[in-house]
């Protein structure tokens, strides 16, 4: 509303009241104590062992649930449902305030949500990275311990859980929320409030996970295997609530993305003109939508085991730990492709821009993305080759697992052939994309060893598999995450990032990354199991080497942080509307993008990769007649 835009804003101290992050935190903490209190009232006398174990899981869970409820209400998520309950008509957008205030509350502008995601995810990404640094510090020596073994396991679990949980939205959160509507010529996501909800759920989840320390941490690593899960201290409850909230957020995010791309593409944007990044978002969202519910279900069972004393995973009570392993990996394997696929999409989206050529084999690339999506639901038991589950089926899972490398290969050939005879420009985003080829190649090929049962017998559960998935996830996701940042920040903020610092960041990160994880293949092959606090003495040198490289890797992140703060706060060099000369629709808009993106829904006249062809830009024109329903 123009009225909202021009109204006089009250002084800062007044604006601190109302629905915002501050209120949310206060209500969240209040809600936590309320739930804790209720839990004790309900269960204190009736269940005696809570006294013995000195922890009351029911009241911890209640505390977390009411805490999340209070947090969301404080952010203003209660207003709309309450109005609808009273029968008021639907509306799309919350009141949109100007200024920084809108970044600290419920905002229905997809661009605000994208930037919220970037900062929020970044925060927890750095916490997870800090955990990794502490882990490597502990592993500097096989015998001298910095942390008690229990706390070390909590560190390992925190690192894995934080990264696997938060980075699932690492690219979909910031970049899909921001750019999918711009790429498909829409003014919003299909469900703006749900879009904002997914972000704030993640923030609540991350905060909850960090509170695990107060309840004795959790010993299970990110997989949370039963029955250790049931045996663990109250910190396990934080893990369960964290992953359940992340699951809900993932599911809603995927739903929102698919609904948007299916129903809101601008006129003329046929499926065969859809930017490959949007295809990657669709593929990932399918996995989000279908895999996350299984995770929520299995965590619900674990919660019931810990509170209501059900015996889902208790072999002595009529349940089975195998049930947990199966259900968890039914989610868990699609999960790793939820982390990998956005990387593929970013690479394929950026290569044409910097090779100045059309995307090679567009249909093949799409087929690759969708093929991976389909196959990733059929391979979960390759995580259980030596567990004794359905041993007779191992040949099938070996085959299906290795089949995945075929659609993955599509991505490789399309990317590589896009470079062929191009005009390659080594900008910072391009460097990160090229690094992806090398990292994911190593990661993928080492995966072949793990997918092959005979060699999996040695490598399973060792540092080899750990090195493998760090090559695929960190080398695949995090590198492309930074590629996307360097590529799109000029559009998101209107300012350029410093190129020299960017290149320093890249080279330090790339070299340190490889010098960290390549030796870990050897460490695993030489017999060091994962998640150990002490290891054989003859592996001391390798572990020391890895630790030092890991610290350098951590330092490279500080270079990025410095660049980010310096360029956006101090240098503030305005970026041109289209610094990379991209043909994609989002770059045809001014930087930063106006609040309502398009005056009129554009009409798309071609796909965004027509480099080297006549009549490249503009690929879109404003609709001749006003879009329907102007008031």
């Amino acid at each position: 509303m123009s009225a909202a835009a021009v109204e006089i804003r009250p002084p800062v101290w007044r604006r601190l009241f109302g629905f915002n992050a501050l209120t949310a935190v206060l209500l969240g903490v209040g809600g936590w104590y309320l739930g804790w209190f209720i839990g004790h009232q309900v269960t204190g006398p009736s269940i005696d062992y809570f006294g013995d174990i000195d922890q009351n899981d029911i009241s911890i869970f209640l505390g977390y649930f009411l805490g999340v409820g209070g947090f969301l209400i404080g952010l203003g998520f209660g207003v709309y449902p309450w109005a609808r309950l009273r029968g008021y008509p639907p509306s799309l957008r919350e009141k949109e305030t100007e200024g920084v205030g809108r970044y600290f509350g419920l905002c229905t502008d997809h661009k605000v949500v994208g930037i919220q995601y970037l900062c929020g995810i970044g925060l927890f990404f750095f916490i997870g990275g800090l955990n990794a640094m502490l882990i490597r510090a502990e592993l500097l020596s096989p015998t001298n311990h910095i942390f008690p073994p229990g706390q070390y396991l909590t560190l390992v679990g925190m690192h894995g859980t934080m990264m696997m949980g938060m980075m699932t939205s690492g690219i979909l959160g910031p970049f899909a929320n921001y750019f999918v509507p711009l790429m498909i010529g829409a003014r919003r996501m299909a469900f703006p409030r749900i879009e904002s909800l997914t972000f704030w759920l993640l923030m609540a989840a991350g905060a909850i996970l960090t509170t695990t320390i107060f309840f004795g941490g959790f010993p299970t690593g990110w997989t949370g295997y039963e029955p250790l899960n049931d045996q663990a201290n109250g910190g396990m409850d934080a893990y369960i609530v964290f992953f359940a909230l992340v699951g809900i957020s993932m599911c809603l995010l995927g739903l929102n993305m698919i609904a948007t791309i299916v129903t809101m593409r601008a006129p003329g944007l046929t499926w065969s003109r859809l930017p490959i990044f949007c295809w990657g978002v669709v593929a990932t969202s399918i996995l989000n939508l279908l895999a996350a519910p299984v995770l929520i279900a299995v965590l619900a069972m674990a919660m019931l085991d810990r509170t209501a004393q059900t015996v889902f995973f208790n072999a002595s009570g009529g349940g089975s730990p195998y049930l947990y392993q199966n259900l968890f990996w039914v989610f868990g394997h699609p999960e790793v492709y939820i982390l990998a696929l956005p990387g593929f999409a970013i690479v394929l989206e950026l290569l044409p821009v910097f090779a100045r050529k059309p995307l090679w084999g567009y249909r093949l690339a799409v087929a690759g993305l969708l093929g991976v999506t389909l196959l990733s639901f059929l391979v979960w038991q390759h995580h259980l080759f030596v567990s004794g589950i359905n041993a007779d089926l191992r040949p099938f899972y070996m085959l299906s697992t290795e089949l995945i490398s075929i659609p993955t290969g599509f991505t490789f050939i399309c990317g590589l052939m896009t470079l062929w005879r191009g005009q390659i420009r080594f900008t910072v985003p391009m460097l990160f994309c090229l690094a992806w080829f090398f990292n994911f190649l190593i990661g993928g090929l080492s995966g072949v060893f793990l997918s092959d049962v005979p060699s999996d017998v040695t490598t399973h559960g060792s540092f080899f598999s750990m090195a493998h998935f760090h090559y695929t996830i960190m080398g695949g996701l995090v590198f492309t995450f930074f590629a996307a940042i360097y590529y799109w920040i000029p559009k998101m903020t209107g300012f350029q990032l410093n190129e020299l610092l960017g290149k320093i960041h890249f080279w330090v990160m790339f070299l340190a990354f490889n010098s960290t994880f390549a030796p870990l293949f050897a460490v695993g092959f030489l017999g060091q199991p994962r998640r150990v606090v002490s290891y054989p003495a003859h592996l001391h040198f390798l572990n020391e080497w890895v630790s030092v490289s890991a610290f350098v890797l951590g330092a490279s992140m500080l270079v990025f942080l410095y660049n980010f703060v310096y360029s956006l706060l101090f240098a503030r060099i305005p970026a041109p509307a289209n610094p990379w000369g991209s043909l994609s629709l989002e770059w045809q808009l001014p930087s930063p993008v106006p609040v309502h993106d398009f005056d009129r829904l554009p009409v798309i006249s071609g796909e965004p990769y027509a480099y080297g062809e006549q009549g490249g830009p503009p690929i879109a024109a404003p609709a001749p007649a006003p879009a329907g329903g102007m008031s």
Partner: protein
Amino acid sequence: MRGPAGKLVGVAAGVAIAGVLIGFYISGYLVGNTTPFRPAAQGSASSPTVHLTLQTVAAVGPTLAPHPDWVSYLVRDDGGHWRRSTIFTLPANAVVHVTLYNFDGASGLRNPLLGRPTGLVGQELVDGKPLAVMPPDEPSHTFAVPALGVLVPIAPVADDAKNACGYAPCALSMAHRTVTFTFRTGKPGHYRWQCFVPCAAGFLYGFGGPMQTVGYMDGFLDVV
């Protein structure tokens, strides 16, 4: 507060806050390190002798821990006070004489093999009588150092014993069993020791909480 100066202040403040938070965060993991206990060593440096006096209690009570209901080992320091420390710093190749007073009842072993004392110098004495093997339903705890091959099952206080000790501190006037044994610390190293009896009441398989927290039923032998 506009302009670069204001921004600089803001960034500096942000960095400071982040630093403090990170400090708190890391310290959150460091807590739980129980302070090591170093018993006095007699005899020659080549073959020293160490006396270690322990007790096991059904619950550490409100004075000793954040978890008053947890079962735990306690060690008697030179002042004769009972401390809750399970990290013992011992000299290498030492002969360690351990006297252990158990105030806890029977929990029972899951694996009866662990009722057989092993790795000791001489025999394990329960109330002065040598012990060959303890029936699986009896042990209340074990003192085990797998890397040294040491395993000592600990006899329980009868359930109907008079004047049983509910929680620490437990006086020797209360019902208890006395277990004495001797073992050798090998070459220098960092040996873990633990209890193998599922004695953590309320936890699944009796193996959570105090059974998985250094400072209660688990610890280290720092052999230097």
